[in-house]
């Protein structure tokens, strides 16, 4: 609450007291002075409007709704000022100009509620006509041709805006004002009903407590104008008075609606704020989502973060499609004109722009933190995918090489060996020794090629799978390999390769008396455990790459005479 709110409150209070005094002093020309009920209606409606206006003003400083409602409260009292009992000509003139404007301001404030702006051109047009009719025609124009002293009110103060005294023109202007009053009142009822009918159910929940009293109020205003059509000016007979008390009741209801919405919104916001504060203490990916989902009572609520390339990711950095599904809506949370996050939520949940703003503001730090984290995760994921593609391309190349060796070089060497054999038969015993020596070389070359092919990418891994390949490894290794449980089923080639090369590398690099190998499938993860009774020469960097590319984890525990390697690789097979 700032000084201007306090000034407005004091002004409303003072003006209310003044209006009561004026009305009581000269009850015959007022509506608010005729009875105790009228007194109460006068004070209650004006103060209620002003109070609701100040509440809205304080809680939504950006919107024009609060000031407008406060002004409406003042205008409600101002209609009492055009009273002979007023001794200030400024106040009297103000009363003459503004006595009819209250409905226009109330309609303006209520239609602009809660955002603070009139949303459509029919609303703007109807409000503009209402202002023109009340302040323009009934107020300024009529006052301009009204000289109270010459037109039967000798005790009235001076009318400061009078330029002429023309009873005929005044009558014409009054009639025009009344007819126009019927027109704009009906038009405003129309746009209010239209607004209510078209609103989503959540928006209706928010605006109905304000719009329904507005419609009632405008209906009574319209009835008053219709009642005045015959006589050609607004007055204060018994019918007018009853209608006017009705208007006061409607305005009190409208004010209560504004306060009610504020109380309800405050409750939701408090929940949001509290949860976000809790979050700030221990931020975890997805935590904000859960917190907002809880606070806004939408369990399916999602938070998406924008990437620089235009894509969207969730808190874990996974790409998401923010297109709204049926029954879901998206609301961007803005900061500095840029969307920092997108809430995908139940349609209608966030129709209250004040709540969205509140969520953005309260969750800003957490959102920013999570957005950066999500961006980082997305980049990591892209990096991982790229690494996976590199490893995959490398494996494909390895397999091709192994096949080429097998079907090409090895095969040729066998043919060559065969040819040597035939040559040996032809040349007879003289050349036998030399040919046998060449043949021995050839066999050694064949042996080397075979080992090379196995090292590049064992055919048995591709053809028979992990268990068979580790079995084959145990047949050729220089270190005893004891195998525990191994998965019999086939897994994705990249997973099998990662597990196999892990074991093969450890076997190759370990200076150990024995190596134990076991691999199990647990909840869509392949768990590989290799234990070497001895030491391991190098870091297993390229293996970390292979396993990292699959989003897996590698852990190496070194003890003086024992190295335990544990790899976990996701495999949705």
């Amino acid at each position: 609450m700032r000084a201007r709110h306090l000034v407005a409150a004091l002004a409303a209070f003072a003006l209310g007291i003044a209006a009561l005094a004026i009305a009581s002093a000269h009850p015959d020309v007022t509506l608010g002075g005729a009875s105790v009920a009228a007194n109460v209606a006068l004070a209650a409606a004006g103060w209620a409007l002003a109070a609701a206006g100040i509440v809205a003003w304080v809680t939504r400083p950006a919107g024009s709704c609060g000031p407008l409602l406060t002004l409406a409260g003042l205008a409600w009292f101002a209609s009492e000022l055009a009273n002979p009992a007023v001794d200030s000509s400024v106040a009297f003139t103000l009363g003459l100009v503004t006595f009819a404007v209250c409905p226009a301001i109330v309609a303006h404030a209520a239609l602009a509620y809660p955002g603070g702006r009139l949303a459509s051109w029919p609303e703007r047009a109807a409000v503009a006509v209402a202002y023109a009719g009340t302040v323009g025609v009934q107020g300024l124009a009529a006052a301009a041709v009204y000289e109270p002293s010459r037109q039967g009110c000798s005790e009235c103060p001076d009318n400061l805006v009078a330029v002429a005294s023309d009873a005929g023109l005044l009558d014409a202007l009054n009639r025009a004002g009344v007819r126009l009053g019927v027109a704009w009142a009906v038009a405003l009822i129309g746009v209010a009903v239209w607004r209510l009918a078209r609103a989503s159910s959540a928006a209706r929940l928010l605006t109905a407590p304000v719009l329904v009293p507005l419609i009632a109020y405008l209906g009574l205003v319209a009835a008053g104008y219709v009642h005045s059509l015959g006589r050609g000016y607004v007055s204060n007979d018994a019918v007018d008075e009853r209608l006017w008390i009705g208007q006061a009741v409607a305005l009190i209801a409208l004010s209560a609606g504004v306060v009610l919405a504020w109380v309800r919104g405050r409750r939701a916001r408090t929940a949001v704020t509290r949860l976000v504060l809790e979050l700030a203490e221990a931020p975890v990916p997805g935590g904000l989502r859960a917190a907002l989902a809880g606070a806004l009572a939408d369990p399916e609520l999602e938070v998406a973060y924008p990437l620089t390339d235009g894509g969207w990711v969730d808190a874990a950095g996974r790409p998401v499609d923010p297109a709204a599904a049926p029954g879901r809506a998206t609301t961007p949370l803005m900061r500095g004109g840029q969307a920092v996050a997108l809430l995908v939520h139940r349609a209608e949940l966030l129709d209250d722009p004040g709540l969205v703003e509140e969520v953005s503001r309260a969750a800003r730090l957490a959102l920013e933190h999570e957005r950066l984290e999500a961006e980082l995760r997305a980049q990591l994921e892209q990096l991982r995918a790229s690494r996976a593609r590199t490893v995959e391309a490398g494996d494909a190349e390895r397999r091709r090489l192994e096949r080429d060796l097998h079907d090409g070089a090895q095969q040729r060497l066998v043919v060559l060996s065969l040819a040597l054999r035939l040559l040996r038969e032809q040349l007879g015993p003289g050349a036998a020794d030399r040919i046998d020596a060449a043949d021995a070389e050839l066999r050694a070359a064949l042996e080397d090629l075979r080992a090379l092919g196995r090292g590049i990418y064992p055919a048995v891994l591709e053809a028979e799978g992990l268990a068979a390949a580790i079995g084959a490894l145990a047949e050729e290794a220089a270190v005893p390999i004891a195998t525990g449980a191994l998965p019999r089923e086939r897994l994705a080639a990249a997973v099998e390769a990662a597990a196999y090369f892990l074991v093969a590398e450890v076997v190759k690099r370990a200076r150990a008396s024995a190596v134990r190998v076991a691999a199990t499938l647990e909840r869509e993860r392949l768990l590989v455990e290799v234990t070497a009774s001895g030491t391991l020469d190098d870091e297993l960097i390229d293996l970390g790459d292979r396993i990292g590319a699959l989003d897996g984890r590698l852990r190496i525990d070194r003890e003086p005479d024992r190295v335990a390697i544990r790899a976990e690789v996701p495999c949705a097979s």
Partner: protein
Amino acid sequence: MRVVIADDEMLLHEGLARLLTDAGVEVAGKAANVPELMRAVRLSRPDVAIVDIRMPPTHTEEGLVAAQQIRTEHAGVGVLVLSHHLESIYAMRLIEEHPQGVGYLLKERVSNIAVLADGLQRIAEGECVIDPTIVSRLVRRPREDSPLTALTDREREVLEQIAEGRSNAAIGQRLYLSPKTVETHIHQIFQKLGLGDEPDSNRRVLAVLAFLRE
């Protein structure tokens, strides 16, 4: 002895055929793929079909599958699978279902006509032939607390002969042992390794290989 040769490598095909013919083996048919092989086997009824493990279309294990098919459909036809793979799993796969009249030799044996002819002969007689290199790899592979250390050198030799698929008589011949001594050795080996009874010479190949692969 009549054979058919299935190998999609033309040069190897020709050379092997010449070498076998020179050694007095009749080459009754040649095939470059599995359907041709099956037709050749059906038409020429050879004693043994020599089959490359890799054949079109995928060049992986077509030869093994064809071998099983031949053993199932033509009881009188033995199969010798030639392969570049040293890994014992392929040999195991071959003899698992039909341990009689089949053989698995490394491809380079084609230029060693003595080994080849011996293998063909044994397969034709219904024995089982496993490449000595594969067997010796299995026997010599490093083991923790190896039960093989309980064997004498001679018993170890006999074990290898068993794993290569030789009958008692053949083992006796090769190691210059009397049939009685061979039987004693085999009894000892099976006891020491905890292998239970000694089934016929073909079934026991499976048992010994499975033991060595563990």
